[in-house]
């Protein structure tokens, strides 16, 4: 297999996801006008399973394809599986939500799958133009999904906000790509790495890096580009918040790893340092007094992005591995937490305030228990993935002598316990309001919750397999791959 040819096996998961996305769009008109939309959801879920299988199949044929556009390796496989897994859990937890809300079901599932196409592609793309297109796919899908609840003013408002600000940020990224091209004469990441390794780095590279960081920093909601997050998360449908706070972020982190670490670009260290410290501090302080749970978790996700950024300051290989591990843990616990909120908030998301969660431990033990696991993991209690992820990140950061950043980070995670605990306290230590009824979660929701909870615990108790995989993937990412030579032939 030469790199310069069309090879569908190298984009097989993306193809499968696109096909299922379109199938859903075609299938919707076949359903009766008043029929349940659940079959579409199951079709979408099946699509994610097929895409997952495709990823595993694809992993056997690593290497370049499409004229050095994509590179399949352990790194890309990891993020493919992460994104697809998140999509699967989100779809399962959406089945009943979509039935209840005023939502175009076909477009809902279609957009989740097609958005996942962009996110998957971001993790395997090694070329800035393709990364940009993939980023746009992922972004536009999330903009639309944010506003998909038609009869919800807050939803429409947050979609508009997200769209305008997001486009603003994307423009920065595109400008950065142009600068990079101007400076190095290539948009191909291995090529850029080669040029930069030759020394005498042009000043434009720094500007290009800065501009790309602005765009990417916005997408991962890291400070100082985080201001949009609480509003948008509050207005977006709960399952979609679970989706957009994890899958696109994972993809963007994959892109950042490629752009920052794989290229060996210079000068960004204290930029990331500052952004990480600011994200952790602002995120946690902002969450302290929030009473709206979605907003609280929005600030929490800002802080979590900060923790992940801390990992970037470590030695490249450890940094990559730590980012991957953290991202997986974060995805499991955050998607799980939002799945609980999706179900519990009920129709029109009426119950998203702290006091609404009072007595959940008594009225709905399964929801309360799983949410507690996710929250404990977010706090970073041992035997959950969140603890090991934080431990790993701070450990590699300190190893790289990032003493103050580690101190800021660990102090932050101490403070953060306060607001996560408030939710636990509300669930277990406050009496249920009058008239609270026990509603059993439907089976798909249960599966989604238990899968997320199981993964959270698995990563905390037997992480070795995943850790050795991420270490291997990091090594693969950082050994310079073959450089593209031929252009336009």
């Amino acid at each position: 297999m030469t790199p310069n040819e069309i090879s569908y096996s190298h984009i097989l998961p993306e193809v499968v996801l696109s096909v299922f996305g379109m199938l859903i769009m075609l299938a919707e008109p076949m359903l009766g006008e008043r029929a349940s939309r659940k079959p579409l959801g199951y079709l979408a879920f099946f699509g994610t399973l097929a895409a997952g299988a495709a990823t595993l199949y694809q992993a056997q044929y690593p290497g370049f394809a499409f004229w050095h556009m994509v590179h399949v390796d352990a790194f890309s496989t990891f993020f493919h599986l992460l994104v697809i897994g998140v999509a699967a859990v989100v779809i399962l937890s959406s089945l009943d939500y979509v039935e209840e809300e005023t939502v175009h079901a076909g477009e809902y599932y279609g957009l989740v799958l097609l958005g996942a196409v962009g996110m998957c592609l971001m993790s395997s793309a090694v070329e800035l133009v393709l990364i940009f297109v993939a980023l746009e796919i992922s972004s536009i899908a999330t903009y639309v999904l944010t506003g998909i609840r038609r009869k919800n003013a807050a939803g429409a408002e947050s979609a508009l906000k997200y769209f305008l600000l997001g486009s603003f940020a994307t423009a920065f990224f595109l400008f950065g790509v142009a600068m990079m091209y101007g400076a190095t004469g290539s948009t191909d990441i291995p090529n850029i790495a080669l040029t930069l390794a030759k020394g005498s780095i042009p000043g434009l590279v720094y500007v290009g890096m800065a501009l790309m960081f602005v765009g990417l920093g916005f997408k991962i909601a890291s400070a100082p580009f985080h201001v949009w997050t609480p509003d948008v998360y509050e207005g977006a449908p709960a399952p979609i918040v679970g989706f957009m706070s994890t899958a696109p972020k994972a993809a963007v982190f994959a892109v950042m790893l490629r752009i920052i670490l794989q290229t060996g670009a210079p000068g960004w260290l204290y930029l990331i340092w500052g952004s990480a410290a600011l994200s952790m501090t602002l995120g946690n302080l902002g969450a302290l007094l929030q009473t709206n749970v979605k907003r609280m978790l929005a600030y929490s996700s800002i802080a979590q992005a900060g923790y992940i950024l801390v990992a970037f300051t470590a030695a490249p290989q450890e940094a990559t591995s730590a980012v991957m591990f953290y991202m997986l843990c974060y995805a499991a616990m955050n998607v799980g937490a939002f799945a609980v909120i999706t179900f519990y908030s009920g129709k029109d998301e009426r119950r998203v305030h702290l006091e609404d969660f009072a007595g959940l431990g008594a009225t709905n033990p399964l929801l309360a228990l799983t949410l507690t696991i996710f929250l404990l993991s977010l706090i970073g209690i041992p035997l959950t993935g969140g603890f090991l992820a934080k431990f790993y990140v701070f450990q590699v950061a300190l190893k790289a002598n990032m003493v103050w950043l580690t101190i800021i980070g660990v102090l932050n995670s101490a403070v953060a316990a306060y607001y996560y605990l408030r939710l636990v306290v509300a669930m277990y230590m406050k009496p249920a309001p009058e008239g609270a009824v026990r509603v059993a979660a439907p089976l798909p929701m249960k599966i989604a919750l238990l899968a997320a909870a199981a993964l959270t615990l698995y990563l905390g108790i037997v992480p070795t397999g995943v850790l050795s995989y991420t270490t291997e993937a990091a090594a693969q990412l950082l050994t310079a791959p073959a450089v593209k030579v031929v252009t336009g032939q």
Partner: protein
Amino acid sequence: MTANLHLWLIPLLPLLGAAINGAFGKRFSRQLVSAVGLAGSGAAFLYALWIASQYSALATAMPIVDKTLGTWIKAGTFQADFAFQLDQLSFVMLLIVTGVGFLIHVYSVGYMWEESGYYRFFCYLNLFLFFMLTLILAANYLLMFIGWEGVGLASYLLIGFYFTKDSAANAGKKAFIVNRIGDFGFLIALFLLIQHFGTLDFTLLADKIVPLGSEAGWGLLSSIGVLLMVGAAGKSAQIPLYVWLPDAMEGPTPVSALIHAATMVTAGVYMVSRSHVIFDRAPQALLVVAVIGCATAFFAATIGICQTDIKKVLAYSTVSQLGYMFLGCGAAAYSAGVFHLMTHAFFKGLLFLAAGSVIHSLGGEQDMRRMGGLRKEIPWTFWTMTAGTFAIAGFPFFAGYYSKDMILWKVSQHNPILFGFGLLTAFITSFYMFRLWFMTFFGERATAEAGHGHHDQAPAAHGHDDHGHDGHGHGHAGGHAHESGWLMLFPLVVLAILSVIGGWMVGGGEGFAKFLSPVFSVGLAADPTEVAGGMSEGFVSALATVAFLLGLGLAWFLYVRRKNIPAQIAQNLGGIYSAVLNKYWVDEIYATVIVNPMMAISRTVLWQGIDRKVIDATLDDAAAGANQLSGEVRKMQSGNIRSYAAWVAAGAVLVVGYMMWMGAAR
């Protein structure tokens, strides 16, 4: 290596109990819940006893490491296993934790019988034992940290057990968060250990650290030691992180006895002793430990003088005694610290349980001003509590006497100033304990009305009403006190016997030190006790006994003989008195200096500046319900979008500016 001991079973047995009670307890009868709970803790205790019976065969092989459960984390060169280890130190801790733990389980059956959430209580209690046993049996710091955080979690659950009371829920949260601050130090210390030694395994670390020489100035090991001490200060309630422990008394009394007196709070002492290889090479860090311990011992003891809630007196006493243990560790006399840990587990566990029995018998009364004359009404409680009081105060040949003398003697060889404060604290301890004893059991029973005329009533803020009571509403407060049932008395008697003979039983401080010497002599050049000069052990004992007698005498004089004097003293001292009564306003100072500013930042800066939405959240909700779309939305929030874009642009300026500067400076 001897045959596999399956040490991992020990923590797992209580976990099993917790799981069963947690999953099915709701449907079980109370008898069955008790049986499961007792089986969980009792099995662990029996296992510990079995190990004790094999001790002579095992001793030579110690430390015995059990890696049955395999690897936990392996990332690069760093590895941490689910490995448990047994040596003399963890053996002592094992016996204390399972033994006292089991007794308190028994006691709880009687004490909590009428509470709702009975199964929940036993589930948490067993869960606590699981984490505590993991903590003391862990063979590396990371596994220890599981237990470390886990006991914090269990303690949080148990403090907040009476969650319908806001004060209890808040106290639980406070305990958890203050502990997290301490964990911050612990974690950083662990990161430093990994960074410099590449492992967290106790044995491997010792191998790497022992060859290092003692640090003359401030070095890496000193930093690690102090950071570990920060962690220990959080868990073991030392200055400046002790504030959570008095509040933790909101929990049920058996919890106070088990977690906040006998076991969990001593985890810090255990951890420091466990890290003795590091501290031995970091004299500066040892000095920090000693000073913190001494200051806490003295400071908390003075607060104890003025408290009127029987559990609060014991809480401050616990803080003070923990300070003693750290003082001992700080003098490099780890075995003395651990010895005091053990005797303290006996007598303080006993004192709490007895106090619980008093409270129980009075239907939930905790205010000592409303007690008095109880010695005839509840004789068993009285006599056992007497044993505990004499033991803690240092009555010759009782348990506390041996351990306290040992610490004081060791300290006297190191630092005369610390010794002076230690001795003074011994006197204060004796005084406030006998004050408690006299107020509770002697004199006349003060009724609710009479209590108001009493001197200690002074600032109403500390009056009866805002003290958290155990929620023991038996409905006969002020009526006739009744003795507790045998389930509650049995643990009291056992612990009373141990409080009396516990020190002598192990051969006093010397014998105990000899027992532990295989652990603490690792990496020591010479026997640390051989310090020239200083006072003889007998002389220190005599001084301590004098302190005991003075305290007893003063308490008798003030609270039996001339009851009007304390009020006059309180009036004459004015400022100092109110400072002590208000615990030196430490809580208030923390609130003003740390908590409030943080909340203010969160509220003002973030909400006003960026997150203005929260303030008009209600308005938005109303809008969400209504079906008005575009126009309304645009008007309402368009300004917001612009300001957000402005922030993004400003951030971009910072980022681009910084990177251009980097590019120019390259």
